[in-house]
């Protein structure tokens, strides 16, 4: 609980503000759109970083959790319940204030779930799904774990691709904006672009604070012990299965929240968000950031997603991520931003690494 602990967070906040001012003064405010999207993807990545880097469990199915969040929220906020309003369940939802009446362009009325209600349901469902999947999956190791999580990702992908009420190959569109409270809404309108940039960045900062506290707590030390030697950790009284499962669920929730908000921001979601390539991309970015390095993952998450969304990689987008994966794993398996490689820069953020070294 010292001043140094909050220094990196302050640096992050100033960086976020500096970027916004930079785009404002250079007249490139349009870039905030991609920056906002990168921020949401970064949220998935820092969540995955805790699971992969600290608990040492690979997941090739995180795009699945992202898609579960996005699709459930999109489905609930776009499906029209008006024809079923006399149904007892619908009127129960209505009485509970979960429903929202809206008018479309032609004056037709539609009744659907309020984004808040949809968001909570999406996250709750993700938690349930993550517990159900994580329980048996996390008993596996190595190749088996990788394949099982990959399998989960493919099942989600196949289901959204093959199910008509999830829009099959077209995905869901016309997702309304998410009014968090009056005056603050998540939507892709250019009038609220700056506001949305700060919502997304604020969420990432909040995520970082939560995870930093987690890493430097009893739980974080237990996770690192599991990563180092699972049997030894177990012998020291760490409930390895419980810690692994809870970390898995936490990182799934991060992915799901990112999915919900990005869907509202983009106004829709398509099956490509659930594809295996997306999951691999998240893993790639965590690996480049240096596995057990939250700041590295965050920086690379922002940077690479931004470059990719701006189209700098052209038609070689996937190939770039594939090559990065190979090169990093061959020559720098500890990641680009490892302790030894950028000692100078890391000194600024030294409190996390120092404690890591001692652990």
């Amino acid at each position, binding site marked *: 609980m010292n001043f140094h602990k909050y220094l990196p967070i302050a640096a992050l906040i100033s960086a976020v503000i500096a970027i916004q001012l930079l785009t404002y003064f250079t007249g490139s405010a349009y870039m905030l759109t991609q920056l906002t999207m990168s921020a949401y993807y970064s949220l998935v990545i820092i969540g995955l970083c805790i699971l992969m880097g600290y608990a040492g469990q690979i997941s090739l199915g995180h795009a699945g959790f992202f898609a579960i969040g996005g699709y459930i929220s999109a489905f609930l906020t776009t499906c029209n319940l008006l024809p079923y309003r006399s149904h007892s369940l619908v009127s129960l939802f209505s009485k509970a204030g979960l429903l929202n009446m809206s008018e479309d362009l032609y004056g037709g009325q539609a009744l659907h779930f309020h984004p808040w209600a949809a968001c909570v349901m999406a996250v709750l469902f993700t938690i349930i799904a993550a517990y159900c999947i994580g329980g048996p*999956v996390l008993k596996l190791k190595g*190749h088996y774990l990788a394949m099982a999580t990959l*399998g989960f990702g493919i099942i989600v992908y*196949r*289901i959204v691709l093959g199910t008509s009420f999830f829009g099959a190959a077209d995905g869901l569109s016309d997702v309304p904006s998410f009014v968090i409270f009056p005056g603050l809404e998540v939507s892709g309108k250019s009038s609220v672009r700056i506001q949305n940039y700060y919502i997304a960045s604020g969420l990432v900062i909040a995520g970082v604070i939560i995870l930093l506290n987690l890493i430097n707590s009893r739980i974080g030390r237990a996770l690192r012990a599991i990563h180092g030697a699972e049997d030894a950790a177990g012998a020291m009284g760490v409930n390895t299965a419980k810690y692994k499962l809870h970390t898995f669920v936490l990182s799934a929730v991060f992915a799901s929240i990112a999915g919900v908000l990005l869907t509202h921001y983009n106004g829709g979601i398509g099956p490509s968000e659930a594809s295996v390539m997306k999951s*691999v991309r998240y*893993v790639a970015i965590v690996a480049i950031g240096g596995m057990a390095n939250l700041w590295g993952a965050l920086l690379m998450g922002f940077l690479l997603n931004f470059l990719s969304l701006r189209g700098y990689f052209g038609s070689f987008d996937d*190939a770039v991520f*594939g090559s990065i994966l190979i090169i990093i794993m061959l020559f720098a*398996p500890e990641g680009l931003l490892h302790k030894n490689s950028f000692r100078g820069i890391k000194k600024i953020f030294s409190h996390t690494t120092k404690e890591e070294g001692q652990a």
Partner: protein
Amino acid sequence: MNIELFFQYLVAGLTYGTIYAIVAIGFNIIYNTTGIINFAQGEFVMLGGMIAVTMNKFMPLPSAILAAVTLTMILGALIEIVFIRWLVKPSVLRMIIITIGLSIVIREGALHIWGESVRALPYFTGTEVSSIAIGGVFISPQVLWVIGVSSIAVVALNLFFNYTLPGRQMRACSANRDAARLCGISAKNMVTLSFVLSAGIGALAGCVVSPITYVQYDSGTGLAIKGFTVAILGGLGNSMAAVAAGMMLGILESFSIWVMPTAYKDVISIAILLLILFVRPSGLFGNKEAFSLKEF
């Protein structure tokens, strides 16, 4: 259901099952010598089919297939020499990520070379409408080619591992690497050889199956997942069990179309994969006790 339809489904299941089994054997060959699951295995199958289609424009079918298999084998060797040979005791996580990266790069490379179009080799004998009637069941001659070529490949591999010197050396390496090295076997060369063999058998499967299933730049991924499912189902490293497991999965999938929409066909096999991983990761025919001693 009438009996003819039943046999028709059965034959379709056997055809796909054979291919899954071949892919699974490819996984097993590399796993046995290195302890690595090569996530790029499906890409070898895709490359075999793709190269053969291109080669077939310049030369007759048999030599095109031969060229495709040879080229893929060379590529397999190159991949091992460039990316894997010089790593000192890599962790499993590192190897998983490297082979996933390789599969993406090969797939994207294929996309840039061949484009997105779907290709196929011509039927080896006859055309897509010709069929042979066996007891009221109509079978495409290509099905017989798939089953025949695959059976020969499996038998040949068995002979290779049991009766030739390099085959026995590879088995020695998989049983005990250090002891094999003390006997003067170059473990590194055996690993290269395992990549060559598994690339070759994958490419061969890609060639024989391409008239039926067609081949596209991304068709490797799906086959790799099925192949892995089969390899696990049979017990990782056990090639004969993989053949039996392949038939099982193929038939199960084929009959699943009956009760489920085709769009969910892949979900079935992956659900089986998850189930077997959760319940009996040593595989249906594997030894539970031996499995628990293995390192991953």
